[in-house]
């Protein structure tokens, strides 16, 4: 009887663990811990997205990361100078998942993982040296921006900028290093306003000798 119990007790968990199979690809989000901060503070994911958090501790003190307020993320101690990779699957509902990033007995930073289900997608085509988009405006809220590199030979990137009053720009996020023929995307939750698509590759980067933005890789865009 006890042998049977033992067999059942061993087989069931092995089956279940095997079924929760982890072969599907995961997106890696790097989190860098310094002595005062944890960056980025607001990564964005989609519902049920499979993520690997690569947490690197660049500070002098050991740090821990732990999900709070219902985030299903068991605590991990990341020793000073080391990296730990932690798998996590986003929940099916939108909202903010909070990851506490702290020094034991010391400073605490909350990394807010935004779970966003984008209703709209805008695709921007990138080529030397211009950007075109399939829409000129979109509704405010969670938006997926896709950067499609239609060039044959040159790497491009797609940055979403917000123009400031003094004429400079605030970089809200970017998809970097898009190879020729490939695409990359980024999710942002944007309020109403005017924005600019841009490629910010400068001379000397990505094998380029020119400033892509100055050459004309910029496009105005509106969120209504």
């Amino acid at each position, binding site marked *: *009887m*006890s*042998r049977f*119990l*033992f067999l*059942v*007790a*061993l087989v*069931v*968990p092995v089956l*279940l*663990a095997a*079924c*929760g199979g982890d072969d599907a690809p995961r997106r890696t989000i790097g989190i860098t811990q310094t002595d005062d901060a944890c960056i980025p503070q607001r990564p964005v994911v989609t519902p049920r997205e499979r993520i690997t958090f690569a947490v690197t501790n660049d500070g002098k003190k*050991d740090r*821990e990361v*732990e999900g*709070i*307020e*219902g*985030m*299903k993320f*068991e605590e*991990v*101690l990341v*020793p000073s100078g*080391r990296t*730990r*990779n*932690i*798998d996590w*699957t986003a*929940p099916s*509902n939108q*909202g903010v*998942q909070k990851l506490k990033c702290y020094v*034991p*007995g*010391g400073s605490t930073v909350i990394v807010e993982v935004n779970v966003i289900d984008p209703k709209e997608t805008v695709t921007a085509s990138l080529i030397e040296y211009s950007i075109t988009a399939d829409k000129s405006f979109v509704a405010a809220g969670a938006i997926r921006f896709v950067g499609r590199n239609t060039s044959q030979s040159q790497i491009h990137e797609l940055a979403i900028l917000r123009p400031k009053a003094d004429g400079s720009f605030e970089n809200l996020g970017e998809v970097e290093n898009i190879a020729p023929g490939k695409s990359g995307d980024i999710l942002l939750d944007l309020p109403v306003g005017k924005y600019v698509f841009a490629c910010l590759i400068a001379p000397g980067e990505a094998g380029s000798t020119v400033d892509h933005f100055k050459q004309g890789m910029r496009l105005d865009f509106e969120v209504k």
Partner: protein
Amino acid sequence: MTFSFLVTVREGVEMALVVAILLGYLRSLGQRRQFRAVWMGVGVAATACVLLATALELVSRELDDRVVEAFEGFTMIFAVVILSGMALWMRRQAAGMSRELRQDLDRALSRGSMTAIVLLAATSVGREGLETTLFLFAGSTNGSSGVPFIAGGLLGFAIAALIGAAIYHGSSRLPLKQFFFASGLVVIVLGAGLLATSVTKLYSAAIITNLGDRPWDTEHLVSITSTPGKFLNTLLGYDSAPSTLQIGLYWFYLLGMGALYLFLPSARRVPRPAEVPGPAPGGAPSP
């Protein structure tokens, strides 16, 4: 669902293992009637965890991390102390037993010993149970804990209970001497892991401020964040980048208890007449 299952089966097996060892110990003393006390301790601890987690969830508060970690650290040390005492007692009894083993020992336990045993059962369940229930219940108001999640968690506890039952029944088939020997080994290995882990808990609680250097990192071999790594961590105290304090305590306990275990003199038997020792040196002749 797999996630919650793996969390509860892992913590549950540790709880079940300790309870199985305690019950086996009581059985070896012929004290099965004390099982009730152990079960009550377990029941009270489990209920307290569920009530506390529910209450915290209802008022949307969280327990101070440091308090939880300190509780875990101290109860682990307590567990190591009690389990070590039990193991050494069993070893002495096993060594002192003659070939014609008396299976029907009826050794009454002192009140203090019985209290320690019940406390150990309760704190083991409470310690692992607290962190697990807080984790599972947390955020059930924000919609991320559905029925499959809770079901997975309960299934995990059920499987852990089955494993504990299997260990208990399996060990009850062993002849007493083998049972003592096997239990003792399990306790030594468990205890070393518990002791090493206890200082990491106290460190997280900021009670210990420095664990020392971390001389190696086996994260690429067995990741502490992977499922097998977490199981090894809970049951054996595995850490991919252990500190010198953890390493020192682990080996000190393993080798120290191991040595005691191998070289402890056996309990005294009542000598038969032929064994009465001869005359004391320079003393009177024997009668």
